[in-house]
């Protein structure tokens, strides 16, 4: 041994071997680096595909749920439709259990080979005390590609703003009507004496008649009156055959007397009253030859000018709720009745996807 060490022959080999060891040590991280790049690409590819499958599952489930809700609504209406109103049928305490059981029974397989999945369905319903009823449906979507899974959880929320929104709407309408008749004395044009018209007239502002309003053109000369804003009549509206009154705003008719057609005897032609807004009446007396059309609603007011009720379709006489498409075609109106369409003043379109027409239920995504 000693001989070899002192001789130093073949030392070059040692140096070369050392170099090889050092070089190979350096190569290892280089190779692993290159390999990890490849692995990363592989992983990314798997992730992209798994995410695609997961998103597919999500779309699939949303659509399935949408369809299921529509079906449930149809079925519920068929089962309980006799005599019950939509309001009752789709009340949360009725609708939520029914829908929940329907969804649980669903078989959910988004992709044929089942590489996309929907798991962990949970339902959370609102308590009866909550103002806005809802049903939260939580689901986990998973996409699997080459063993790599990508998941996400989403909550679909079904809300039932129907009741809340409607009550609010009705309240705000009544509030508006109140404001309307409370502003009676602020009308821009006021007549304290009886006002008689012999020819066509047009008002651009609000008008108040403290006494009667009479259109006294004889049968041959029909008078047309236009009110661009509101009209208040405290006494009597007295118009003759073929006369026409058109009001763009609301009409307040605080008289006990009926809406007349013609003062004298004879004649059988109609007179028209068209109201684009609401009509407030104290007495629902309409002459046999009067044609009245109200685009919005008819309210009955008492002697103290308080709204007693909103007149509805159930109160048949002298209201006719079943008129044609609009107030544009007088032939469809019934004579001697107040024809009203019951249109609501504001847009009733609720933001967000409305997938449940008629039932008052809406679906929205809470978290993604």
């Amino acid at each position: 041994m000693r001989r070899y060490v002192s001789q130093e022959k073949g030392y070059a080999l040692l140096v070369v071997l050392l170099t090889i060891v050092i070089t190979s040590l350096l190569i290892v991280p280089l190779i692993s680096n290159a390999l990890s790049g490849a692995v990363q690409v592989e992983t990314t590819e798997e992730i992209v595909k798994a995410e695609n499958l997961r998103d597919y599952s999500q779309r699939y489930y949303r659509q399935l749920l949408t369809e299921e809700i529509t079906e449930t609504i149809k079925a519920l209406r068929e089962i309980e439709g006799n005599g019950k109103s939509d309001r009752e049928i789709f009340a949360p305490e009725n609708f939520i259990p029914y829908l929940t059981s329907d969804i649980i029974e669903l078989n959910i397989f988004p992709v044929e080979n089942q590489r996309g999945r929907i798991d962990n369905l949970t339902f959370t319903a609102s308590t009866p005390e909550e103002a806005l009823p809802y049903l939260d449906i939580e689901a986990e979507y998973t996409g699997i590609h080459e063993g790599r899974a990508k998941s996400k959880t989403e909550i679909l929320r079904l809300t039932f703003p129907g009741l809340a929104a409607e009550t609010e709407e009705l309240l705000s309408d009544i509030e508006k009507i109140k404001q309307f008749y409370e502003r009676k004395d602020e009308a821009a044009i006021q007549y304290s004496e009886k006002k008689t018209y012999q020819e066509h007239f047009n008002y651009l502002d609000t008008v108040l008649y403290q006494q009667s309003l009479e259109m006294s053109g004889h049968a041959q000369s029909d008078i047309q009156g236009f009110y661009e804003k509101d009209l208040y009549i405290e006494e009597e509206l007295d118009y003759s055959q073929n006369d026409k009154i058109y009001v763009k705003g609301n009409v307040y008719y605080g008289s006990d007397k009926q809406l007349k057609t013609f003062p004298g005897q004879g004649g059988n032609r109609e007179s028209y009253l068209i109201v684009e807004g609401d009509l407030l009446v104290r007495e629902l007396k309409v002459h046999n030859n009067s044609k009245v059309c109200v685009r919005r609603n008819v309210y009955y007011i008492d002697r103290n000018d308080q709204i007693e009720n909103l007149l509805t379709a159930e109160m048949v006489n002298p209201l006719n709720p079943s008129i044609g498409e609009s107030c544009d075609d007088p032939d469809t109106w019934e004579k001697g009745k107040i024809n009203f369409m019951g249109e609501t003043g504001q847009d009733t379109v609720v933001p967000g996807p409305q997938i449940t027409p008629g039932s008052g239920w809406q679906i929205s995504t809470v978290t993604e």
Partner: protein
Amino acid sequence: MKYFYGHKERGATLLELLAALIIISFIVLTFSIFFTQSQLFTKNTEEKIDIVNLNQYILYEAVDFLHEGNIEEVLQNEVHNSYFSFLEQSETGYFIQGNNDQMYYPFIFVHRNEVQQEESIQSLKAYHVTVSLRDETNETISELYELIYETDLKEGLN
């Protein structure tokens, strides 16, 4: 080797030189193999990225095209590829070219078939679109799916 210890020497022997040469050539050879391998690797991974990208591109293009109101027409025909103008056609069929001038053969398939015993895509009011890419041996190398809602189609038409 006495050089290292401060002794004078005439130079390395021929034998030493030869040995060094052989060793170095081994190292160089290993390195060159490694580099060619990594080059191949890079090419391969690039191709893979390319394939996924192309697959996604075709899927989006197809979905866009179907949204334009052509879906029923496409459904009536068995060969769906012919509807998609962004595909090139040769004797071997419809193809699309990757970044490395590699040819891929896409297969676009739209259906409303059953997905399980009772449920069908049709009853879901949706269409299922599959876009797969195949290589020369007709082996599927990538596949992506999309679901198109009927309601979205109507919006697309408006």
